[in-house]
């Protein structure tokens, strides 16, 4: 009955094998047994006759409108139904009776999982797993994101989509107020066929195993809900494979919360590692820029010094040339003057 928090997961029948990305594998694996002595319900689908008394009782106990389709209306089984915002539980027919085989019915409602998915994904902690077993929902904090509805593997939650002011998530409450008073949930009391038994979960598992032992031809050798996705409060027995009752077979024993939160251990690592890493990149960049700038300045200085020398040499050369030109000009002028003087003297 213990659930390992992080363990290696075998491949799922649905091909959804999720290898845990646990980056921190604890040396001691945490075990969470759940609240001791908590309640559960056993639904024996081989006993269910599809009378839907449970639907009527549930509506009465929770002050919901009576089921639209009255008891005795067999057309209701033509389509598979799910719970709605005004019907916490429904009964479906999964196999028509034919000849010897009786029809097979199953009651759907919130499974009150040991490790609730809905609670784990709720960003305002609107769900609580009580010590008695039922999961409670607090509409006072709910913001209506509907992640819980999206996550529930049993499609057990419904929403008041036509309510603009205070829409709530609607689901079976396992009649928590009645349990606190020592009463049974409404559906358990109402069932005339004994298909719903209320009691302590650990006891009900024994009861279920006992029934399988006593009537091996009647039951599939499996108590559904004992371990699936960490286990549920509603346990089920069936005479036909559970997949034909629209239940996921071969589901991992690892709870969905464990799978769904294994990634979250990476988040703190990002916050603790990125600052140093990114500041490091920034420092590298600044250093590269600084070095490049220094190199450029060195090259400029050299070019300037080199250029200064060249300029000086050029200047000296030009001065030399200018001097020579000047001397030549003076020489020419003097020769000319002397020549003129010689000519002037003869006349």
């Amino acid at each position: 009955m213990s659930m390992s928090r992080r363990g290696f997961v075998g491949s799922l029948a649905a091909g959804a094998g999720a290898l845990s990305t646990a980056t921190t594998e604890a040396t001691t694996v945490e075990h969470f047994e759940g609240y001791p002595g908590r309640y559960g319900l056993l639904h024996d689908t081989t006993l269910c006759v599809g009378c839907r008394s449970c639907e009527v009782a549930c509506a009465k106990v929770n002050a919901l409108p009576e089921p639209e389709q009255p008891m005795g209306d067999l057309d209701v089984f033509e389509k598979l139904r799910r719970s709605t915002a005004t019907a916490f539980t429904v009964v479906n027919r999964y196999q028509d009776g034919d000849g010897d085989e009786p029809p097979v019915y199953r009651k759907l409602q919130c499974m009150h999982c040991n490790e609730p998915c809905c609670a784990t994904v709720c960003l305002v902690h609107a769900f609580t797993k009580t010590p008695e077993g039922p999961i409670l929902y607090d509409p006072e904090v709910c913001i209506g994101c509907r992640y819980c509805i999206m996550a529930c593997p049993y499609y057990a939650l419904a929403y008041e989509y036509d309510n603009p002011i205070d829409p709530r998530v609607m689901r079976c409450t396992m009649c928590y107020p009645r349990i606190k008073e020592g009463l049974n949930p409404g559906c358990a009391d109402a069932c005339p066929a004994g298909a719903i038994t209320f009691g302590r979960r650990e006891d009900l598992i024994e009861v279920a195993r006992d029934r399988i032992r006593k009537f091996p031809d009647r039951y599939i050798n499996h108590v559904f809900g004992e371990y699936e996705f960490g286990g549920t409060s509603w346990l089920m027995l069936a005479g036909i494979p559970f997949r034909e009752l629209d239940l996921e077979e071969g589901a991992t024993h690892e709870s969905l919360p464990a799978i769904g939160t294994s990634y979250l251990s990476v988040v703190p690592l990002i916050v603790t590692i990125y600052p140093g890493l990114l500041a490091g990149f920034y420092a590298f960049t600044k250093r590269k820029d600084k070095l490049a700038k220094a190199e450029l300045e060195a090259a400029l200085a050299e070019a300037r010094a080199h250029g200064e020398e060249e300029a000086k040499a050029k200047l000296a050369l030009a001065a030399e040339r200018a001097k020579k030109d000047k001397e030549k000009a003076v020489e020419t002028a003097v020769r000319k003057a002397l020549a003129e003087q010689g000519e002037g003297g003869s006349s």
Partner: protein
Amino acid sequence: MSTATAHGERSGIFTPFNLIAGVILVGGAIILTIRFTTGLASTTNLSNTNPWGLWIGFDVMAGVALAAGGFVISSAVFLFGMKEYRPIVRPALLTGFLGYSLVVLGLLADLGRPWRLPYPFIKQAGPTSPLFEVSLCVALYLTVLFIETTPAVFEWLGLKIWRRLVGQLTIALTIFGVILSTMHQSTLGAMYMVTPTKLHPLWYSSQIPVQFFISAVAAGISMIIVEGWISHRAFHDQVQTSNDQFRDINFGLAKGAAVVLGTYFAVKLVALSLENEWRLLATGWGAWYLIELMGFVVLPCLLFTVAYREQRLGLVRLAAAMTVAGVVLNRFNVTFIAFNWKVPHSMRYAPAWTEVWVTVSLITLAVVVFRWIAHRMPIMYEHPDYPALH
């Protein structure tokens, strides 16, 4: 009613763009009024089986991925010193800021009680929830983006001291932005780790957070290319970059996008390999998966590669558009196409026209605001009074 400007041109309020945008926005406002007065049922196809639809799939999931260009470009310029991309930092950050604003608006339309949005931080926290982490990061990141957009506003208003103050925060904000973006882009994917029975195994993976993050980088870069393509034409008179400079920027982005898409493809192959899902490719869903992977990841990767090698700008833009479409398609697949894949056909989800209209309204609003800001504030150019600090 048109007013003649000083130059004698006629500039009117009733341009074709404004008229169309106006009709879209008014229609969106009407639909949202109905939504808030009668409940989500009247304007959406959401159900108990499909509690999340187009508004989550596009406005939130795709919207966040497409707005990733902000942290990519700002980290490239400020942390990795790639100065040649300076001219597109402001447009990228503005696109990011408006993108994330669009995400929050879309969320407010979708939440059952949107006025309770701050509850996780002020009333009661659910720290086990990936959505808690996403909302915390998005709230913080929206703040970061807002502050990173204010330099342009302060320059426009001439508030020199504020401008200087905010400029000094650039590096710290950029680092914080990368931290926040890495976290929430990945965690948006991680939100689906809790639904192994509902998301088709080809899309479900323990590595979906990494896949979401890498595809977001590709989407961000591609959106910058698309946004630049439109802005360069629309704001031509303001743009200071030469045509060559602009082309170089685009080709640089194309090079980056090619590498990121190639990496994303490799990561997807690794996921298939680790979970030994090759035979699933031969199914109908496999074909659809291959369309997404080959047509919208591998093909744009090849197009970006060729475009960079041959320096063909048109090809860059085509690849960018395909990448954007591909990431949107991936988010749609994860949110409502490959999600609930086992549910009977009659209970599957398709968006209502009202949902589509509201989404288009939000996009239109973002475009209108972008235009308004870019026409007035130094986004497409550098204000002469404020030399670059870094």
